[in-house]
């Protein structure tokens, strides 16, 4: 009986958490993203979330493209490799791996730092101090982070796509002895702007929203001292990672599923 009670309690906790996140999201959208805008904050968050994540996203994309090329080469025959490797690398990177891996990397980097920063501000009463200085924390802290993440993630993924394809190209031409010119030509032929590239960019924007929202939500709800902030950081990363993977499935089925 205790076992059933424990499951029931977990389920109730889960429902309560989903409800709190939904309410926070509503507040973030109708208060945080409405005027007035703190342009200085938006610019500095854009720099922090977007620009400083570039190396991580670029490296991830490069190695993923390379590894993908090796695996597809192993699975194809000598006759088909020239066609299969570039097209599957390009489609795999732009549709799935580019946005998802960039999302997970940025969640680990930026989601964690947002949660830690806002969590510390919360426990040291800096968020309350904002209120007493007639500044709404949702507009000053949450809005700029969400805007910056939603704008910078597609840009990061677009750059990551190009670098991932380049990774596949480098491995294919250097160690698999595929023809470089036909690799590029096949990639250009097989890659479609809407189906492949922009679907990945749409995903990236959604993932950016999830990362910033989870970072802010867990940061704002951290309690206690250092330990509370630590827990908030972990939760922000875990929640974003799971929501990224789940929403990726939903988005893929919406964008590419059988209609």
């Amino acid at each position: 009986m205790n076992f059933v009670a424990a499951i029931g309690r977990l389920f109730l906790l889960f429902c309560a958490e989903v409800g709190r996140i939904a309410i926070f999201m509503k507040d973030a959208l109708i208060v945080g993203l409405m005027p007035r805008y703190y342009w200085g904050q938006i610019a500095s968050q854009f720099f922090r979330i977007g620009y400083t994540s570039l190396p991580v996203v670029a490296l991830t994309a490069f190695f993923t493209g390379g590894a993908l090329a090796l695996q597809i080469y192993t699975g194809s025959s000598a006759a088909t490799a020239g066609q299969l490797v570039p097209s599957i690398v390009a489609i795999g990177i732009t549709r799935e791996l580019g946005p998802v891996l960039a999302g997970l990397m940025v969640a680990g980097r930026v989601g964690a730092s947002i949660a830690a920063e806002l969590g510390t501000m919360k426990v040291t009463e800096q968020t309350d101090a904002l209120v007493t200085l007639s500044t709404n924390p949702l507009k000053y802290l949450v809005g700029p982070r969400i805007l910056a993440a939603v704008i910078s993630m597609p840009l990061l993924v677009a750059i990551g796509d190009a670098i991932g394809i380049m990774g596949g190209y480098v491995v294919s031409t250097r160690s698999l002895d595929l023809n470089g010119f036909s690799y590029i030509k096949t990639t250009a032929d097989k890659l479609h702007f809407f189906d492949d590239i922009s679907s990945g960019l749409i995903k990236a924007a959604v993932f950016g929203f999830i990362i910033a929202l989870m970072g802010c939500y867990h940061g704002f709800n951290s309690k206690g001292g250092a330990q509370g902030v630590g827990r908030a950081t972990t939760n922000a990363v875990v929640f974003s990672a799971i929501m990224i993977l789940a929403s990726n499935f939903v988005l893929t089925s919406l964008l590419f599923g059988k209609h």
Partner: protein
Amino acid sequence: MAPHIELKDVRKSFGTKHVLNGLSLSVEKGKSLVVIGGSGTGKSVMLKCILGILQPDSGSIKIAGEEVTGLKGEARDQFLRRFGMLFQGGALFDSLSVWENVAFGLTQGRRTPKGQAREIAMEKLGLVGLSADVGKLYPAELSGGMQKRVGLARAIAADPEIIFFDEPTTGLDPIMADVINNLIVDCVKRLGATTISITHDMASARKIADQIAMIYKGEIIWQGDAKMIDRSGNAYVDQFILGRAEGPIKMDVLKG
């Protein structure tokens, strides 16, 4: 004349924990009320309810005769512009320099031009005894006493009509505590502001209070002139101001 700040029967619970149990108090315009009471008796929650950071479950909070619970949007922004607050830990923004902290309510909250806000910030830093050089430093580079001073300068920067002080002397040595007390008295007199301070430092309470109120278990159990504190005739107040372990107030040494 209606009291400047008036709380009537304010209640606030967190889950099953009742923090404010029908708290009522009032402060006249331009007066300084010090609320004393032990840790965990609801002092901070009371201030947060007045500011609307926390929503009381029931009861009424009036500022200059106007009901302020549940204010939203622009009305709330207008309302908050009348307040300044000095936080217990200073709560300075660590990503901003000292003068930007002091000017924050002006530049962000009221959109004062930056140059003008900077001048006002430097002037307020002067009032709390800090030189202009300190303005360029960051909060992490300051001692606890200096952070409190900066916090005070920030609280008074926009010349608010109501100022809250949350344990202004906690964590300071007795001399620095007295310096802060003097600054509070000076600044408040200069502005003519109405203030509520919460503290458990009796020396500080005697120095800055016109009136003293004692909070116990989420209720005001005594309120009177600061001069009357030693003749309150209230066993709880006597135990608190004399700092005795024995008396009607039982400390929960172990958390139940």
